[in-house]
């Protein structure tokens, strides 16, 4: 495999840019209290649905950090009118799927189905959100699944590095800071089904609910089905405003030792203090893409292509959709090449930070980012994700249509100014996860 298996998060940042007019083709209405966006495309039969509302992990009480994730995991385990097997059969018999997942602040619903099954799928989404059974027997199983999945993740160097990184750079209380796995495990074991019911009662509702449908759509029918499925649903919460990050007193260098691993995952980074919608986010992301976006980024060109030290290294800005996010460099190295690899990454980081990007690099990167974005919109999933993220970011849909212009308006001075203003390599945190030589 020539290319990266972990897709560049910087690319994800730009997967929200358009050059063709999108906003005029979105039908946006408020239906049953829900912010509904519909975007018909030329694809035949396929419909992708996305929805989100504030019920993510950061809304769990500090004393019970697993609560939101456990609640989300219970949604497909049966409703007050049918058990999980009946729901699964209803979906599987038409090849449709619905997934619920708790992110840092939002609970996201992802579904895909054929055009003819849109009414069924919307009804099932509503049923599972509005009337979950929360059966104690199912909850006991979910607790065990949760523990098993988390424990299995602890075997993954990438997970361990990114998990530790959040606690190293984000202060206590910041939504992007993840709970210690040990604490999460004990919280999951101590949680009661009554607490899950209370969390559901408090946070589930249309107060800040966005629903996106893309594909082979009959928009009036979609609106009718949403009305039918969600009318009478009340409650929910608006997302609270989070304070921007302050610095942490965590050690600047941390090792997560994992025995018998043949590759070490490395993360270097810091918080930026920037949300996606902040004006300086765009130039910082473009500059970051010059450093570590794909195969033409400096990191891959030097650390991989020239030196052969890694299969994958990249730089990206992330976690800035709803709150201020971070800048990260990712790399993997064989234990015996770790120090050499780290030195090579730091050399590129320091040169980039000190001297910035060149005019030629910037021009090439603009074409790359704008072009890749167009390609990302060639699928219903790409479009649905883009529309939902735009709403989540508090950006107008029209902002999608002038993105290319905004990228093209960037100059080296603007980009390099953002790099210097928001990043300081000497203050960045280094996380190493794996069989790090000399560590235990």
């Amino acid at each position: 495999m020539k290319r990266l298996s972990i897709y560049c998060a910087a690319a994800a940042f730009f997967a929200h840019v358009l050059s063709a007019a999108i906003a005029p083709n979105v039908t946006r209405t408020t239906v049953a209290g829900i912010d509904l966006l519909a975007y018909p495309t030329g694809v035949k039969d396929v419909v992708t649905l996305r929805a989100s509302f504030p019920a993510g992990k950061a809304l769990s009480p500090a004393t019970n950090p697993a609560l939101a994730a456990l609640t989300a995991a219970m949604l497909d385990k049966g409703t007050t009118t049918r058990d999980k097997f009946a729901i699964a059969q209803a979906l599987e018999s038409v090849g449709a799927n619905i997934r619920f997942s708790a992110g840092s602040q939002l609970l996201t619903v992802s579904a895909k189905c054929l055009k003819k099954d849109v009414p069924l799928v919307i009804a099932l989404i509503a049923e599972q959100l509005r009337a979950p059974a929360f059966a104690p027997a199912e909850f006991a199983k979910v607790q065990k699944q949760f523990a098993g999945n988390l424990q299995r993740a602890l075997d993954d160097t990438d997970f361990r590095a990114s998990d530790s990184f959040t606690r190293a750079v984000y202060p206590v209380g910041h939504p992007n800071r993840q709970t210690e796995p040990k604490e999460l495990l004990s919280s999951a074991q101590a949680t009661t089904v009554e607490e899950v019911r209370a969390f559901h009662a408090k946070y589930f509702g249309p107060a800040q609910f966005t629903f996106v449908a893309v594909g082979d759509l009959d928009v009036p029918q979609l609106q009718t089905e949403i009305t039918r499925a969600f009318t009478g649903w009340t409650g929910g919460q608006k997302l609270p405003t989070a304070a921007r990050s302050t610095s942490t007193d965590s050690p600047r260098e941390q090792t997560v030792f994992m025995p018998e691993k043949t590759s070490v995952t490395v993360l270097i980074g810091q918080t930026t203090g920037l949300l996606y919608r902040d004006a300086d986010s765009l130039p910082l992301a473009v500059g970051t893409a010059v450093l570590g976006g794909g195969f033409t980024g400096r990191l891959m060109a030097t650390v991989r292509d020239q030196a052969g030290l890694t299969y994958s290294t990249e730089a990206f800005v992330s976690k800035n959709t709803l709150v201020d996010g971070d800048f990260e460099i990712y790399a993997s190295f064989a234990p015996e090449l770790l120090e050499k690899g780290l030195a090579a990454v730091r050399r590129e980081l320091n040169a980039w930070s000190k001297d910035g990007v060149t005019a030629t690099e910037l021009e090439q990167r603009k074409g790359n980012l704008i072009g890749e974005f167009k390609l990302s919109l060639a699928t219903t999933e790409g479009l649905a994700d883009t529309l939902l993220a735009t709403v989540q970011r508090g950006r107008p849909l029209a902002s999608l249509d002038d993105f290319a212009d905004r990228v093209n308006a960037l100059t080296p001075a603007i980009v390099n100014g953002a790099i210097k203003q928001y990043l300081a390599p000497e203050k960045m945190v280094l996380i190493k996860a794996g069989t790090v030589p000399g560590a235990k």
Partner: protein
Amino acid sequence: MHRFALAFLAVATAFPSLRAADQLAAAPVKAEGFTYVRTLGAISEYTLDANGLSVLLMPAHAAPELTFMVTYRVGSRNEVTGTTGATHLLEHLMFKGTAKHNRTTGKGFDQVLAPLGAINNATTWLDRTNYYVNAASDQLPVVVELLADTMRNLLLLETDRQPEMTVVRNEFERGENDPVQALDVEINAAAFIAHPYHHSTIGWRSDIEKVSIAKLREFYDTFYWPDNATVSVIGDFQTAAALALIAKFYGPIPRAPKPIPQVYTEEPAQTFPRRVGVKRAGELGVVGLAYKICPASSPDFPALSVLGDILADGKNARLYRALTDRSLTTSVSANTGFNRDNSLLTFYASLAPGAKHDEVERRLLEEITRLRKDGVTATEVQTAVAKSLAATAFRRDGSFAIASSLNECIAATNWTLYYTLDEALKKVTPADVLRVAEKYLDYDQSTTGWFVPLAASPAAK
């Protein structure tokens, strides 16, 4: 590579195809230098007369983008001891370029494509190697020229092999980090003792490190010829114009000077169950169970795919009910190998905390025994078929998704599987499923593997 490869396998087993009625094939054109072969569904096949290059064209104008892909009929099945992983390493070296297109000239693959916003990549798997570019429609000429240039003009320098070897070695090391991948390598190596599916596509570490540039050159000169390749164009293009471009850039390349070597090794019959294991630091155990099955082109394959779904796909799957719903596993899966030669149907059961390997294995086998004894219901078959047909529609969502599926069908010897498998799937009956269960889920032809974690890491304690 391995991670990607598994993903591709999963895609392939779900029957890649389009529904013919939903996409209209462009009428065949008379193009100078090409022989029109046939049209099936929305795909038309041509052969470039000059050198035997196969060309598949699937116009779709929903979005101004396209995927251009070259599939070489060479994969890790064409390797032998000492050169395992060579196909994959050669795939990496492809991007080091040619005399005309390399980083030094400023016209390297990425240097040309990235500023255009085009996405390019390559993958290697057991039966094939593919290179593809997703690009805006108007960039087709640039893309065809670039990929055609790599067919016979690679530099293949030792100075490029050295750093790329360590890149690939780190790819190998990343795969080894995952106990399930390590177990999968062991299971395949035990299940196949003669056939080259014995070794994984990324190869053995020592071969990755030591294969010479001369050997790689030999590999390239043996397999990278137009009459061992298929070019596919999917998306927004005009047929006549695309054919003209292909003729212009691929036409001057000669046929292979010697016949492409064929793999003739057949796996001898397995008469006794085999057992392997991986024991090392880790968190939770895994049980794998693999059975020998037929090639993807076999008439038995659709029923085997339905069988795998009935056992392991979704909450109503039998193994979900028997294992995951009883808190013995965190997940179960079935992978029905979509390959050119006899392959494996592999079940994986990821143990939940506290679960024992032997109990999970026993229950897994009990479910298989029950299915072989009592068969399956019509509802189970109908549900599995419905899921596959819907997945078919979902894979019409963008040119790259189509290309990914088509690629596996080309590798499995016949691109028309892209359509014919769906039709065959619709005809599968409970009796068919029972028949293939009895035929293939024979314990004597199984390989069982355990991942046994030695101790939890400190954070998990």
